[in-house]
């Protein structure tokens, strides 16, 4: 009796289980180790969960910026070089952060984007040569010259995702995509 009452529940549990844990069909491919995944995984989410240990301050960052010759392309203090400026333009405000221009360390909604980009892509032609400490320090320096953090700010895996970027909530969300969806509801084109 008791068993019969439980039966539907058991069946449901089994069904849910098989739906969740699909088993592999082909059995091709190898399981990477946890260390391998950690070493490969350089995608930094807004929560910063993938950030490595390390830390840096604006002062340290100013030195790394010189030592790594970032200024040779971006200008001595983030402007006036041949490459993109790294310091905000005049005219923006907390109320209108877009007017500061398309400058990563001010427009990025999360400080993690700045860290991630420097870590992957800079210095140009010598990518992948920065240590985690250097990337924290450079991020701290660039956020400091853009008045996002103070001179005594310290960035590490805990504090970096907490930085309040002025553009955190002022961008439009992309629509949830569904197959067969037009580009924009109500737009005939």
């Amino acid at each position: 009796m008791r068993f019969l009452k439980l039966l539907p529940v058991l069946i449901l549990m089994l069904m849910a289980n098989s739906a969740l844990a699909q088993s592999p069909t082909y059995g091709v491919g190898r399981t990477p180790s946890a260390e391998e995944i950690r070493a490969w995984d350089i995608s930094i989410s807004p929560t910063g969960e993938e950030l490595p240990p390390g830390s840096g301050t604006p002062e340290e960052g100013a030195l790394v910026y010189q030592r790594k010759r970032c200024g040779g392309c971006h200008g001595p203090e983030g402007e006036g070089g041949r490459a993109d400026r790294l310091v905000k333009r005049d005219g923006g405000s907390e109320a209108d952060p877009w007017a500061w221009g398309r400058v990563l360390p001010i427009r990025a909604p999360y400080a993690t984007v700045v860290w991630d980009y420097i870590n992957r892509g800079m210095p140009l032609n010598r990518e992948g040569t920065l240590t985690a400490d250097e990337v924290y320090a450079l991020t701290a320096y660039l956020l400091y010259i853009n008045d996002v953090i103070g001179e005594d700010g310290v960035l590490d895996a805990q504090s970096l995702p907490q930085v309040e970027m002025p553009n955190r909530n002022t961008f439009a969300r992309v629509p949830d995509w569904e197959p067969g969806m037009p580009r924009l509801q109500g737009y005939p084109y």
Partner: protein
Amino acid sequence: MDSKRPDRRRFLKGGAALAGGLTLGAVEPVVGQLPGPEGFIKGTDELIAYGERSRFVDSVRIAHPPGSRPSPDEFGLVFHVAAPLQDSVGVITPSSLHFVGTTRGSFMPDIDPRKHRLMIHGMVDRPLTFTMEELKRLPSVTRTHFIECAGNSSRSDRRTAQETHGMTSCAEWTGVPLSVLLEEAGVKDGAPWIVCEGTEEVKGSSSIPMAKAMEDCLVAYGMNGEDLRPQQGFPLRLMVPGFEGIFHTKYLRRIKVVDRYYMTYNDYGHLTQDPDTAALGYQIGPKSLITFPSGGQELPGRGFYEISGLAWSGGGAISRVEVSTDGGRSWSDAEIKGSANRMAHTRFGFSWNWDGQETELQSRCTDELGQVQPSRAQVAEFFEVPLGPSFRVPGRDNSIQPWRVASDGSVHNAIS
């Protein structure tokens, strides 16, 4: 090429050995009045190994002309290379002429496919790493798809179809459906996004919705019947059919299943404050282009011409193409050549007798979702903004390209 006349005796002798095999050049013409060849092309080892086009065909790619983002840039780096659409026939862009868009065009990774790996991890039951050999063991599909760069928009100062629209191309892609790989790894319930990474500078894709990943994305290793070219991501590229070019991650090495929109650098680069622009900047809209006659070409005189062009849409297959030969006042259906494939260039043709008078040619298409390609004026009207030379179509520009045919037969960009 300077071997104008091969040794005739050797040729005849060799002919016996070659019978039933290769035919090297045509037999020398015997009737003097018929147009003959300019000479013979020697069957060198190189040409036997990998063919070449005729020296009389000179269609080439060009650096994308200066626009919002110059290429070459301040560092002399070319990263936008446009395809010669005005010379195209059919729907396939030859791999050598396919447009190229990269962050750093000059620095393509030189990858040994035997060492290349693809890792799938994140919110999955079983993280997996594949070699190229393992990927090729899995069930494959072959599909024709276009890729179009987000910046592919015409402006009044661009002259040819290559300058106005050359940042789109279409190829036949072969690979493993991404859904096969994701199912093999077992996606955890409710994982809404994936992010991808290739072996290059910024190394990242925009965040891709899981619904798209499972629908029709392709992990491609083949292009137009051979391995991908380095400029197109050798040995592995993610195809995200119908989404703007930047999603199609080259040199693909990692796919991470994630619990949120990841705000990657590419996501950041596409941020906007306007929800309409955000929506319109995602999936390519219905778009078409007359490739003949197009800007820079010349009609030798009045008479019959088949107007020819390409139509495509990120929303699916092209269901209709119309052509106007009077500047958009009247429209007639064009003929769709062959089958209209989903998210693929589709060739259309339209029979036309030119009377020698100045006129304006336009094409517009409709896709399977019923989305219709607009004129710039229609878009401006929809958004209630003035239509001036500085008007920019919000999101990805899919507006109609007008070509003016002058009475001397020369063809010009008619965007004002």
